[in-house]
């Protein structure tokens, strides 16, 4: 079905159209707005599945078209259909559909329901476009659109100052990463002369006829900057926890499953450009982020913030996987993470909804009896995240990442490997803490007492996602590495003995052991604490108050940024304002003053010189006339006298003139 490539553009176009129509609808047309969004995303899902199937029959297919010309060159955009894009499209469309359905129930009481679905559809369109783009320029455009949709959705309840501030923070911080991305893009264009990924051998990811494949550390690291911003890696992670100000479906869709994964997808897409050094950097950054975020998560009390830091940590794992193991390893964890993290967030949303908008885990407790379906699915998600062995997808994907550090394939230091193990320990620890405090023990508040289960429109997506969280793992085990084979174009064989291979087996056993220890220890601490009232301090806090405080304050990163970057920028902004108002404004005022002065001068000249001149001239004529008329005094004898004198004069003239 090569013809599918011709219709590939419909996959992002359908939700975009739904968003456009929704934007024009009045607020009361809720069902129409939701219907458009869900219908569009369903269509995208169907087409994505068709595209997925089509990838089995042929290699990567592209459909490039010219956008505009300038000078002798032209800017081209295009769509590509290859395994990486297809699997990502299916995952995005599926998770989006489930979350759209969930939102029907979660946002039912919100007055801005229509606007919500409009923005959701816009996001879905942008994300699908990003996934299928064949041109780095088209990719970047969709990347920015995704950022915009994220801003709109984080600040959805913009009347809350904290939400508005969080939206701004997200946009600005990701922008900083995008700056590096843009510079990298420009360098790539300058070096290869094209921004298309695959173009019949001419694309920038293919070994070009013109200049050879450009695997440049500089370009790779610059593009990685964009991924650092979007996926919340270490210096630019500060926006992700604050993004929890948005509604829970938004957190689930954007900040767990899809948008943050766009950074990982970017690195996977431009993988041919990564040199060994770049991969080292990526793996290190990922490892540090993983441990950093996991440690902060241990000391948080908001149910969504714990999950947010968990997301940051897992994104670090994905980067580790990409750096050490390659595209398949990173993408596998991305896919499994999408399912179980979306599940966890939606479950958290269900808990919040049930506890009447309460988000502090210290004020919950004993909810497993009151919210059974939520508890069951949440437990599945938690076990998948921790990496409980065999039946849960997180185990297989995380171990694939750790496995790629074996000394045959990884030439760098083993420190990231140990950091990854430590991170897994912490992950299990904080997740168990959270589950104990939320679902076990006795209810700590009246709201928790009277918590109710969510309606089916919300619980059915939870169940579906739980199923996926279990099943997806089986596609990437070492026994049957179908996922990896699919992405790299090899054949996968079913071979159970691969499970017993050296490094892989060691990793599996080691990680299982760490996870078990963490769950038991955390369960022992918090299981007992859960039966005590909420106001008591956290046992960890009691044990290590200083360390706990530091973790709770997120290692003071936000405060540090505020004191340096934010303060500098504000000062510069004030200076620019002064410059504009005083200097440039003053210049404009001076010009105005000059013009006014010239006008006044002109008027004065006109009045004094021109008018006065005329007046003086006329008066002179009149006065001289008056003077001359005095000769006529009416005295006849004077006239006669004058005649006499004239006669004499004439006579003398005649007499003497002729001599």
């Amino acid at each position, binding site marked *: 079905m090569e013809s599918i490539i011709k219709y590939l553009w419909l996959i992002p176009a359908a939700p975009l159209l739904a968003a456009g129509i929704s934007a024009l609808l009045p607020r009361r047309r809720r069902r129409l707005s939701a219907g458009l969004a869900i219908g569009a995303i369903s269509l995208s899902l169907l087409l994505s599945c068709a595209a997925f199937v089509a990838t089995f029959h042929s290699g990567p297919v592209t459909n490039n078209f010219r956008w505009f010309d300038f000078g002798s060159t032209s800017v081209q955009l295009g769509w590509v259909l290859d395994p990486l894009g297809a699997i990502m499209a299916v995952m995005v469309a599926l998770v989006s559909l489930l979350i759209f359905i969930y939102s029907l129930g979660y946002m039912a009481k919100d007055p801005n329901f229509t606007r919500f679905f409009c923005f959701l559809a816009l996001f879905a369109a942008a994300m699908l476009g990003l996934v299928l783009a064949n041109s780095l320029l088209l990719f970047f455009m969709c990347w920015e659109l995704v950022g915009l949709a994220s801003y709109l959705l984080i600040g959805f309840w913009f009347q809350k100052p904290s939400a508005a501030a969080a939206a701004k923070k997200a946009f600005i911080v990701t922008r900083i990463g995008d700056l590096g991305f843009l510079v990298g893009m420009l360098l790539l264009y300058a070096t290869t002369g094209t921004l298309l990924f695959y173009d019949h051998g001419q694309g920038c990811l293919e070994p070009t006829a013109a200049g050879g494949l450009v695997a440049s550390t500089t370009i790779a690291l610059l593009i990685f900057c964009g991924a650092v911003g979007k996926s919340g890696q270490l210096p630019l992670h500060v926006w992700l926890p604050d993004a929890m100000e948005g509604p829970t479906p938004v957190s689930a869709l954007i900040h767990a499953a899809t948008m943050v994964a766009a950074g990982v997808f970017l690195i996977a897409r431009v993988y041919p450009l990564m040199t060994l050094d770049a991969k080292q950097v990526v793996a290190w950054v990922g490892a540090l982020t993983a441990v950093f975020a996991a440690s902060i998560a241990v000391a948080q009390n908001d149910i969504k913030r714990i999950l947010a830091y968990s997301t940051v940590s897992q994104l670090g794992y994905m980067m580790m996987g990409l750096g050490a193991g390659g595209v398949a390893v990173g993408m596998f964890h991305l896919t499994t993470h999408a399912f179980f993290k979306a599940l966890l967030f939606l479950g958290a949303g269900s808990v919040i909804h049930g506890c009447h908008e309460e988000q502090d885990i210290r004020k919950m407790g004993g909810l497993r009896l009151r919210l059974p379906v939520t508890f069951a699915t949440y437990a599945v998600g938690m076990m998948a995240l921790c990496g409980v062995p065999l039946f849960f997808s997180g185990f297989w994907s995380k171990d694939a990442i750790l496995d790629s550090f074996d000394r045959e394939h990884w030439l760098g230091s083993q420190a990231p490997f140990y950091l990854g193990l430590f991170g897994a320990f912490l992950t299990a620890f904080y997740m168990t803490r959270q589950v104990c405090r939320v679902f076990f023990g006795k209810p700590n508040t009246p709201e928790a007492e009277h918590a109710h289960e969510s309606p089916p429109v919300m619980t059915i997506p939870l169940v579906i996602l739980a199923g996926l969280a279990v099943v997806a793992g089986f596609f990437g085990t070492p026994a049957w590495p179908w996922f990896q084979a699919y992405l790299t174009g090899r054949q996968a064989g079913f071979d159970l003995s691969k499970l017993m291979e050296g490094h892989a087996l060691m990793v599996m056993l080691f990680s299982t052991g760490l996870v078990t220890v963490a769950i038991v220890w955390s369960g022992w601490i918090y299981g007992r604490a859960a039966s005590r009232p909420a106001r008591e301090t956290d046992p960890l806090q009691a044990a290590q108050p200083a360390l706990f405080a530091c973790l709770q304050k997120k290692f003071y990163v936000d405060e540090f940024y505020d004191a340096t970057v934010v303060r500098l920028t504000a000062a510069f902004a004030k200076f620019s304002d002064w410059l504009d108002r005083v200097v440039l404004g003053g210049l404009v005022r001076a010009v105005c003053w000059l013009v006014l002065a010239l006008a006044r001068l002109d008027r004065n000249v006109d009045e004094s010189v021109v008018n006065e001149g005329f007046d003086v001239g006329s008066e002179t004529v009149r006065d001289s006339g008056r003077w001359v008329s005095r000769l006529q005094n009416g005295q006849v004898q004077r006239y006669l*006298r004058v005649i006499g004198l004239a006669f004499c004069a004439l006579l003398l003239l005649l007499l003497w003139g002729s001599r």
Partner: protein
Amino acid sequence: MSMPNEIAFLLCALVTLVGAVAAMMLRNLIHCALCAAGAFAGLAAIYLQLDAQFAGFAQLLIYVGAIAILIVFTVLLTRGADILPGTASAAPSWWMGLPVGGLVLACLIESILASPSLRRLPPPEIQAPVKQIGEQLMNQFVMPLETIGLLLTAALLGAVVIGLREPRPSEPNSQ
């Protein structure tokens, strides 16, 4: 050089000049008019001396007989005879007028003395008969004659119109 002619001329000239000066200087206007008539008469005598008899008699008839009488009438009609003792008879700028007269006299005498026509000899005796004057009037000067007729008619009518008293219905007695 004929002494009697010379004396006669000088006498007539004296009469004329004295009469003219008196006419211009006397205070009483009637006296002025009569002296002017005398001056005219003296001039008529000089015309006779110059063999222009018709002109001389015409001068007497018209100037003395008509114009002088007219002047007297006018003086009487304008109460010029009742001159109040306080008013001056000289014009306010008489001191400018006399020098102008003197200047004109000087210029005229200068031009007379410089003229070449002084060297003309007196021509022989001539006759200026009235018949000839009449013939010339009817032949050569018929146009001026007719024009003079028109002029006199116009002057007559004009004088009558100007001198007419305007009827004033508001006043029972005008003047």
